[in-house]
């Protein structure tokens, strides 16, 4: 670092009136009052939530909104997750609980027997989505997460798959089954054409 890289900022010199604070305070009060009586602006800016929703006005960015999770299905309707535990490892809130089992299908080794996400512990950071090698877990634009008990908000595999069914219209699965990264060779073929019978 050279000397002339350093930019030293000095406090601006204040005039005597500014040092007394009062003119500034009055100025600030003026601004506050102006906003207070600016009905038009208020009407233009505010969404009256339960009646007006952002998805209705097209202002919700459905493609990358961080809402409730879903577990994607592959074209055969099977759960796309291969129980690799990448998401639960990446999760900073430790809210993904997976139990893996041997896959009944020939094209993958494992599949999740149980897949629970505690939506109340989740901080909706999207790390799980980033981590997943097969894009099985995704965050959806659903944000109305309400229940009467905490237990109801621990979503299990069935519920997560159901969320996929509900949201695939507004947010199609991000990538086609063949991801353009990471998968090579036989495995990639398996994922690309899962219905073709192959010898294991």
């Amino acid at each position, binding site marked *: 670092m050279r000397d002339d890289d350093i930019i030293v900022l000095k406090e601006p010199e204040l005039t005597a*009136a500014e040092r007394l604070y009062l003119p500034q305070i009055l100025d600030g009060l003026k601004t*506050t009052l102006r*906003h*207070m009586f600016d009905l038009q602006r208020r009407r233009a*800016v505010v969404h009256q939530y339960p009646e007006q929703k952002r998805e209705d006005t097209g202002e919700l960015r459905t493609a990358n909104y961080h809402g409730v999770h879903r577990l994607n299905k592959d074209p055969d309707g099977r759960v796309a997750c291969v129980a690799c535990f990448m998401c639960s490892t990446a999760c900073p809130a430790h809210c993904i609980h997976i139990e893996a089992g041997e896959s009944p299908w020939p094209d993958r080794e494992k599949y999740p027997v149980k897949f629970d996400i505690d939506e109340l512990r989740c901080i909706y950071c999207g790390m799980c989505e980033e981590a997943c090698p097969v894009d099985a877990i995704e965050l959806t634009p659903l944000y109305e997460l309400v229940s009467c008990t905490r237990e109801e908000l621990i979503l299990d595999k069935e519920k997560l798959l159901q969320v996929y069914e509900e949201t695939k219209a507004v947010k199609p699965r991000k990538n086609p089954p063949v991801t353009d990264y990471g998968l090579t060779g036989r495995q990639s073929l398996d994922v690309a054409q899962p219905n073709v019978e192959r010898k294991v």
Partner: protein
Amino acid sequence: MTDPTIKRIETLLRKPGVIFGAGAAILLLVTALLALAFPLYKPLLSAQFPFSMIVLAVMLALILSATAVCILAERKIAGFTQDRYGPNRVGFWGLLQPLADGLKFLLKEDIIPRHVDKPLFLLAPALALAASLLGFAIIPWAGQVRWPWMPPDAPPLSTQVANLNVGFLYLLAVGSLSVYGVVLAGYASNNKYAFYGGMRAAAQIISYELPLGLGLLVVLLVSGTLQLDQIVQQQAATGVWNIFLHPVAFFLVLVSALAEANRAPFDLPEAEQELVGGYHTEYSAMKFAMFFLGEYVHMITSSALMVALFFGGWHVWGLPGLENVTWWAMLVKLVAYLTKVALFIALFMLVRWTLPRFRFDQLMRVAWQSLVPIGVALLAATAVLTYLGWQHNVWASLAANLLLLVVLLRSAARSKRPVTARQDDLPEVDVRPTA
């Protein structure tokens, strides 16, 4: 809510007619009950002590419901200044929000953490609320009154709860008592953030007690009495409010009152961004609500005090009935007083949503390096004026204030100390021309 009954109730409450109708009905009912029971309490109205008790009961009810309205107003003003609507769901225009808030506070789980000092933890919120309520005793709400059924030569009754000789000395004492609640809460919570909040409150109140006292002393020198009702009567008699004599003193008292009530920009004891919740971090449900109420009650007390001291109490020029002590004159005066208090509260709220919070060293600097010297200088000037017998002379007082202001401006213009007060022991760095 999908329950149709609930839905129906909700839409019903949103209708203005329903809300105002219910309000009017309740008001009518209360008036009718009071009228029916009139023979019962009529004898009580003629003597000072029982009358004071009645004033106490009425004003207490009024103040406690006023705090509820204040909280709604605060949230509305907060919303409006930020281009939002504020609460507008519960009832028409959100008017039932205070009810919903109160219900929520009552029904919430009341948590007492295991690590707290339990007796003090329980005592603190009660103390905070009680101490701020105590101040109401000496506010002269509506001057004096003589009921029509009293003999015409009987001395009129005072609408103060207690007409103390020591007047606002009592208010000073009680006002600083409320910091006990805050400090105790901070100490008893056994939580470092709460403790910081309590310590800040203590330091802040000690510092701002001084300018407040100095400002009040100026009024004392002018009026020559400590009794609030006499101060108000003096202002009403001459028609010259004390604000016209001593605007600088009023400013001192206003700033200190903000600080004493822990209102922004002096809300350091509960600074959410630094201290979680400050002294009430560990409090929940009704105990938290009591701190909340205490803050608003304190705000109302300080407003009422300032109105009495500087804005002529119930006096407004040209208002009918100022001279006499009939019951309708009392009502007129009461309305005038309450209107002024409401205006002050609105000012407090606007200030809160306008100004950012002071840093703690700035807070101390404002008190000790600016307000206290100004207060001492003003006090000295007023003392001289009083010695010369000119203390009621508007021009002399204004000249003294103006002189003070000019001296201040000059010294401010000369001072090279940065206002944001970078720590003075940091090395001075030069600005180099950027290549």
